[in-house]
């Protein structure tokens, strides 16, 4: 064979090989695209987790469990199963979360979250004066929606195995709740005999006896919780609209506080 024929033949072989590679790649392409899309989504979730820790956790809780009156729980069965119907949202859950983050909560919707007294949920999108870019909002959406499996009970998240002290009883909770009561300044408005002398709010010395009968169908614990979160939901006769119990109580602190109040019997 002449050199020309050698080269043309080698060129032909290289071209056929290229085409074979392309065909093989093409056959694997749907699977590769799916893998790439999954990885890209996973990356969004990872980035969303970082953004959530930076921007969202102070109001919605480190694990999306909600923080007292500040922000509702997101890692929550109701959020995934009932929330869209509750607010009459027509679009997808992703669009609901995205628009809520971008625009903020312009009008409060039931159940009412008071916020910290200044704003309800602020607008986070750069388009509306917030700090987040569109891609960051999408990452946050991916992260928040990824709670669905554990919130609705499909997946059980295991706690980190750590040497924990033995579980405390209600009495232990009540002891901590008393500290919360004092530290959070509840006593400035409420009297508990022997503990505080506030007068602008109802006397709580024997609140455990009456809490269960204030609101029909509501347990004492739920009533106390509601009274803290939404002070004006039920006003005891003779008292003005109270101050918002501003500041942040974590869910755990609130639980402790309620446990403490439930020990206050006449």
């Amino acid at each position, binding site marked *: 064979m002449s050199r020309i024929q050698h080269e043309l033949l080698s060129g032909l072989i290289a071209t056929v090989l290229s085409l074979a590679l392309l065909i093989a790649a093409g056959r694997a392409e749907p699977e590769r695209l799916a893998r790439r899309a999954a990885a890209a989504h996973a990356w969004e979730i990872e980035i969303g987790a970082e953004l959530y820790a930076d921007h969202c956790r102070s109001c919605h809780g480190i694990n999306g469990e909600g923080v007292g009156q500040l922000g509702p729980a997101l890692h929550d069965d109701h959020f995934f199963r009932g929330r869209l119907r509750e607010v009459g949202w027509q679009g997808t859950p992703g669009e609901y979360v995205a628009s809520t983050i971008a625009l903020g909560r312009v009008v409060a919707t039931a159940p009412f979250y008071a916020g910290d007294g200044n704003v309800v949920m602020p607008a986070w999108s750069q388009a509306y004066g917030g700090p987040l870019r569109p891609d960051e909002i999408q990452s946050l959406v991916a992260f928040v929606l990824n*709670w669905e499996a554990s919130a609705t009970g499909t997946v059980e*998240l295991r706690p980190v195995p750590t040497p924990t002290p033995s579980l405390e009883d209600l009495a232990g909770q009540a002891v901590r709740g008393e500290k919360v009561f004092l530290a959070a300044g509840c006593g400035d408005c409420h009297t508990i005999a022997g503990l505080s002398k506030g007068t602008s709010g109802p006397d709580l010395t024997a609140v455990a006896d009456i809490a269960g009968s204030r609101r029909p169908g509501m347990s004492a614990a739920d009533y106390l919780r509601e009274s803290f979160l939404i002070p004006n939901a039920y006003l005891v006769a003779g008292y003005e609209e109270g101050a918002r119990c501003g500041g942040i109580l974590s869910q755990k602190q609130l639980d402790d506080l309620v446990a403490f109040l439930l020990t206050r019997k006449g």
Partner: protein
Amino acid sequence: MFRITHLAAAVDARARAIAAGLSISELRALLRGDKPGERPNPRYRAHVISFLLHIRPRTYPLASTWFTHTFRLGFFTTFFFVVEALTGVVLMIYYVPTPDQAYASIIRLITRVPFGELLRDVHRLAGEGMVACAFLHMLRTYVTASYKGVRSFTWLTGVALLAITLGLAFSGYLLPWDQLAYWAVTIGTSMAAAMPWIGKELNTLLRGGPDIGADGLLRFYQLHVIALPLAALLLLGVHYYKVARGHGLSLPAHIEEGDLPPAERAAATRRIDFIPDLLAHEVFLASLGGLALIALALFVYDAPLERHANPQRTPLETAAPWFFLWVQGLLKLGDKAWMGIGVPLAAFGLLAALPYLDRNPSRLARRRPLALGLGALGVAALIVLTYLGTPGYGVHLPAAVAIGQAMAPEEGIGPLHMVPFDNLPLGVFAAEGTDEAALPASFASVLSDLRRRLAEADARGALPQARGLIIVEEWQADLKRITLRITWTTEPAGETQAEARQVYTRVFYIHRQRSGHD
């Protein structure tokens, strides 16, 4: 009978119209490597009839096509340019040049478009190949002294083409709008700002404002897809026409001016036809180049993509693209105006002026020791500067941050991402004193890697009494939170200060679909 010959004549006429005057039997003769069957040689006439062929010489002196003389570098630079144009046109369909959309459009290309990732990898790979080949082509031309005399102007257009090639590569660098792109270009354009007199204006012109934003991206996009390719095409035409028609192809120096036996000279300067000898060779090279690009892009090379550009967050390590590392090296040696602008401009000025400075008429290596010595010095300087420009040199992260960066880099995949997701055990694991036998091997090796790094930093005094900790928590379905914590003791700073325990913490997240990969 009449009808059949009539048909044959019609087919032949059509074939000749398409194949630049070559009949079917002539084409077959070409492929067989036979001599032309008609007179006058229809293969030469093809150079007159066809636009694409008319810029190619009909014949080449044999020695000018020797592999050791050209290494086919000019050919491959052009080949890569064509690949860039073809892939670039397709990529333009999917790319959106706005800060809000650019990054998402790249993600879409990779995750939704069949062959999209291949296209992007080939485009990036061929772009880097073009930079490398253009530079090596110039180096070869310098070594064989093919820039002298009548070839001076050709050299000048070549220097301009190298500058355009670098401009194309650099402007393309910004387009994905990721951290890598954003900060490399921010640093690159900040040098323009150091230019005396016109620095501020030039910087504003390039960036479209004080910082790179929507306007800057659009400018770089426009440069990348229109202005620079057009300039490259124009100059490439001038460059090639000069080589092919203007002054003759350069032969190896010892044949052009050496003392050769006449027979040997005659053999070396024997003219070979472009069609089919060189055309077959170019078809062969292009097929090989195409195969190499596709295979590399499929199996070896992945075009990098970091996180979305974030002007508020400077990466721990910013690196210029490899072909500009030498400038970054220069910047570490001096100030921006002199080292970042002065020296590179002077270098390009020297290159452009080379044929006019080098008055030595000889091309023979042994008669130009000074030129070759200076050339070697220049290449050595480039290599040293490139090394100085790498992020590892001269810039030292604090020891704990460096360990954090090694275990869990800001960008890309770190050792903990490589542990299969289910082998990341939940719990709190100290680098020292954890029972590694009870852990999955892949995770245990990361833990011992951390221990080794801490011990090394401790021994060198960077992190006295260093301790490390990895906490793995199940955060969401298929998502784990990793906390890497390093503590160490600092020396008391003054008499009043007690020694203090310092803490470095890095928290990051690993999703199942991004773990276990390499």
